[in-house]
């Protein structure tokens, strides 16, 4: 029999969840509803006149080449962040799993970046890569490579990807390490007796057993790249050069607060909301039957 807590009074359960409800309403439902309303409105730059325009904002977005370009930029950015981030952190986790001496220090060091605010991460990488004065760009120039993310869009993209990956790597690392450590050692030993060399053991035993972790992190990283990297972009490139690093969230901010197109910006944020909901649904669907072996 399922054991349940039964409340005698009818108001107590509501009172208990009230703070949560208030917080969610105030910081999620209300702004979300506002965005929804605004996405159907058109207002002038001073907010003096507001008129209902139906889906016109969405139609405009569909016809806006810069918006579609931003989708592409976001796809490149988030796939790069997820792939590079997951690969690197898996690599680090595999090393950490082997290290016995000084393991604690090694792990602690790897966890630090997570404690750094995104904006600071952006600035940090910006300093290192500043054309002419940054440590890294100086070294690169010595090696005959002219680094300038202020002029070169690919360089700018590389810079923000690196900063975003660096920021997220600890998180991925911790999950991968936990995943690795939950694989029974005897499985690896059995595979070794069966004649599998380390590389083969990794791809045929370890990696498949990590697949639930990998999928979870993939979704988390894409969500992160989509939504949580605003501060990194803002501090490192402000979307430049041109619009080469304008990802969707950055465009919401830019169009709304810089270009003062509130309706268009609201419509964009509604689309983002739909994307995050879709990702979450995929995630939950998968988690429910995540035992794939």
């Amino acid at each position, binding site marked *: 029999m399922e054991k349940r807590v039964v409340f005698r009074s009818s108001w107590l359960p509501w009172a208990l969840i009230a703070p949560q409800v208030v917080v969610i309403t105030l910081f999620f439902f209300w702004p979300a509803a506002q965005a929804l309303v605004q996405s159907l409105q058109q207002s002038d730059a001073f907010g003096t006149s507001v008129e209902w325009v139906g889906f016109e904002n969405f139609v405009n977005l569909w016809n806006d080449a810069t918006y579609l370009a931003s989708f592409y930029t976001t796809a490149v950015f988030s796939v790069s962040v997820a792939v590079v981030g997951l690969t690197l952190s898996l690599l680090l986790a595999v090393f950490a799993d082997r290290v016995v001496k000084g393991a604690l220090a090694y792990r602690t060091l790897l966890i630090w970046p997570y404690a750094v605010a995104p904006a600071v991460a952006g600035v940090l990488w910006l300093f290192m890569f500043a054309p002419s004065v940054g440590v890294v760009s100086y070294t690169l120039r010595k090696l005959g490579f002219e680094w300038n993310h202020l002029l070169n869009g690919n360089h700018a993209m590389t810079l923000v990807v690196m900063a975003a990956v660096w920021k997220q790597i600890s998180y991925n690392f911790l999950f991968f390490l936990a995943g690795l450590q939950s694989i029974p050692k005897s*499985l690896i030993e*059995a595979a070794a*007796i069966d*004649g599998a060399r380390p590389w083969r053991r990794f791809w*045929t035993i370890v990696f498949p057993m990590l697949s639930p972790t990998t999928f979870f992190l993939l979704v988390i990283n894409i969500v992160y790249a989509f939504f949580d990297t605003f501060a990194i972009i803002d501090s490192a490139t402000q979307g430049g050069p041109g619009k080469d690093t304008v990802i969707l969230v950055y465009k919401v901010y830019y169009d709304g607060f810089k270009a003062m197109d509130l309706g268009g910006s609201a419509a964009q944020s509604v689309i983002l909301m739909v994307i995050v909901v879709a990702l979450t649904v995929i995630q939950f669907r998968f988690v429910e039957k995540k035992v794939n*072996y």
Partner: protein
Amino acid sequence: MASISLKNVVKRYGNGKSVNQVIHGLSAEIGDGEFVVVVGPSGCGKSTLLRMVAGLEEISEGQIIIGNRVVNDLEPSERDIAMVFQNYALYPHMSVFDNMAYGLKIAKVPAAEIRARVDKAAAILQLGQFLERKPRQLSGGQRQRVAMGRAIVRQPQVFLFDEPLSNLDAKLRAHTRLEIQKLHRELGITSLFVTHDQVEAMTLAQRMIVMNDGVMEQFGTPEEVYARPATTFVATFIGSPPMNLLKNAPGADAGTIVGIRPEHLDITADGWALVVDAIETLGAERLVYGRWAHGSGDELMTIRCEENVPVPTLGSTIHVTPRADRLHYFDAATGKRK
């Protein structure tokens, strides 16, 4: 097939100040096709020994020879062995078939032959209908058989078993014991089987190694180990209930421990006078716990009686006589048989 010889094998864990030696120079010769059981209390180093043979632990000192090759520096895969783990170590994301075929695929055995070998092993182990299932869809006993199947298909020189029956319930364990015996009769592959269970050891072994604290106390057939235990440790570890050890038996030399198994004491009209402390009835037989107060101190003793022997009353005094040819004598200082 191959013989295994262990020459002065030593295992140390750790280094510098925190060295922990767990195997202290163990030597043994295991014949080609022999089934040898390593038995001892948990923590005595059985798994460590087996894992050194498998190549999963480094050998600190000494030599291990399989067939005619010194294997100290060979990888596990180069030693031509197969191992059954206590937790079976099945690959959870692979089907039963793939679990068994994994090693063969790596060895680049042709697909048709893999199919044939796996089918044959599956038939022997009655796994035919489960080949497409994942390990999690099998019962404990079936998983255990898959683990055995994975070892069999490789057709190795040596089988290594690390407590493969300890996760099964009592009935299945007894059954699987018989299966393993049968399998060994059919395949005749040299086997090293580790267990902490003396019943398992006695029933399975052609010869057994009794280990304690990283030392081999005795190496012999189950009959030898039972009839002539080499040390007081073996005397009390093998046999249930354990052998009675009398430290101050009247008439024995000083410094000698006298041993007598509970089943070799008879209740008689006169003899050693025991006060009955407790009685346990086990169906076909009965255990009587008695205290023998003699001049130089008390001795506690267990007597195993057939059910047709009249039940003594608690607190009464009975007389027992040991069968003279079943007395064992051990050196009190070293514990060795005299």
